[in-house]
């Protein structure tokens, strides 16, 4: 073995990472080579000193500072968690409103007559809408941007657009105010809750469980697109199921489990 070969192996030799054959070769070389032996001693000294750098004095305030920040983070996380269903609701309502606005923009024949009947005395309603829109805007920035883009693209229609929105806002609020209601009777209450939970998660539907998620007696699902699918799913999974559909209009669905 040559000296440079030996030196390359010294690091692994010290850490016992050589194969038995390699180790034997290095050992034999070291016995006959004073310069490599010296090199080994130097390396060992350096490593010994490095080892001492492990003794670090951790500043006493560190732990406290870390935990303070973790608690702040944890609080922030919780707040986001609690806001989630509400945010989903607002964002999806804003999206629905936007779509409805766009649809009516293109076919506002009926709306125009309605608008004329109402006249120009609807100032309070309009300002209320403006307030509500500001709230929506802060949560649904994207939707609002699109709307703003639309508005600026159609400057001549601005007045009509604004008035249309009055009528639309009313119809939209009527929609969300009427909630479809189902009364479900079954012996398997937990099963029902589980099926609905799965449905809500899969369909990405915001759900509110009352009084809490563990002991559900009623569930509100927001912006349900396919209610038939849900009732089919329930009928498929629950044997002794009976559904009584009290109110049959509305995008939101309240399910009472009895």
């Amino acid at each position, binding site marked *: 073995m040559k000296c440079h070969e030996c*030196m*390359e*192996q*010294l*690091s*692994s030799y010290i*850490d016992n*990472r050589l194969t038995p054959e390699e180790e034997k070769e290095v050992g034999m070389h070291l016995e006959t080579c004073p310069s490599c032996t010296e090199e080994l001693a*130097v*390396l060992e*000294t*350096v*490593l010994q*000193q*490095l*080892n*001492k*750098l*492990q003794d*670090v004095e*951790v*500043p006493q305030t*560190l*732990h406290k*500072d*870390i*935990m303070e*920040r*973790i*608690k702040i*983070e*944890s609080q922030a*996380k*919780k707040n986001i968690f609690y806001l989630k269903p509400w945010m989903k609701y607002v964002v999806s309502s804003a999206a629905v409103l936007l779509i409805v606005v766009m649809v009516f923009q293109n076919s506002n024949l009926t709306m125009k007559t309605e608008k004329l009947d109402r006249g120009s005395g609807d100032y309070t309603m309009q300002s209320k809408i403006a307030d509500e829109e500001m709230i929506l805007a802060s949560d649904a920035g994207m939707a609002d941007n699109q709307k703003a883009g639309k508005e600026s693209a159609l400057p001549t229609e601005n007045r009509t657009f604004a008035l249309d929105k009055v009528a639309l806002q009313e119809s939209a609020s009527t929609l969300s105010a009427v909630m479809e209601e189902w009364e479900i009777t079954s012996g398997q209450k937990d099963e029902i809750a589980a099926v609905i939970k799965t449905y809500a998660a899969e369909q990405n539907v915001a759900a509110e469980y009352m009084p809490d998620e563990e002991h559900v007696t009623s569930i509100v699902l927001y912006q349900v697109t396919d209610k038939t699918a849900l009732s089919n799913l329930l009928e498929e999974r629950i044997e002794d199921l009976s559904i009584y559909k009290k109110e049959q209009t509305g995008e939101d669905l309240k399910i009472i489990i009895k």
Partner: protein
Amino acid sequence: MHEDTERQLINQAQAGDTNAFETLISSYEKPIYTICLRMLLSEEEAYDATQEVCIKIWKQLHVFKGDSKLSTWIYRITTNQCLDLLRKNKNKKQKETSLFQKNDESEEEWMLDKGSEKECVEKIVEDKELKEILQQAIFQLKEDYKTVIVLRDINQYSYDEIAEILNISLGTVKSRLSRARASLRIFLEQTKEPYKSFFVKMSNKEGTQ
């Protein structure tokens, strides 16, 4: 900490229990701080970096699936945090135009000439001085080398752990460590301060023991 206890604490912390997290993180604060201090050199930076690492662990704990040991995962976050900071600092320094460093890439060429006139040989030999010299030398190593030296020779992690922390093969750990140690030795053998006196101090110290 027993593995089951740790697993339980991880589950509780993942569910948002800050007390469980406190117990869990307490045993890692020192190794995290040690890595940060030895990698970053400055106590202030190490202090801040340790906090950042702990926050990251808290925030990302939900993605920890237990495929590797928690310690490995934590030390990976730690080394990555340090490497990020070093890169940021390096960019900052380059902008400030260094007067002392000719070339960041070339290890052999850089030179901190401050105090080279001073004769240190007669000084009382103290561990503290040796540590400072050594720490300075480590800091001058290139990032890859610095990382393996800190993990292996200071924090004493096994080759397998290091391979996992850095996501490199065992063979790479072996060769990189060998080159890193050789490189460190070259620094310490320089005839300029502060390194000039390292081996002198060492031999003085050995003589007094």
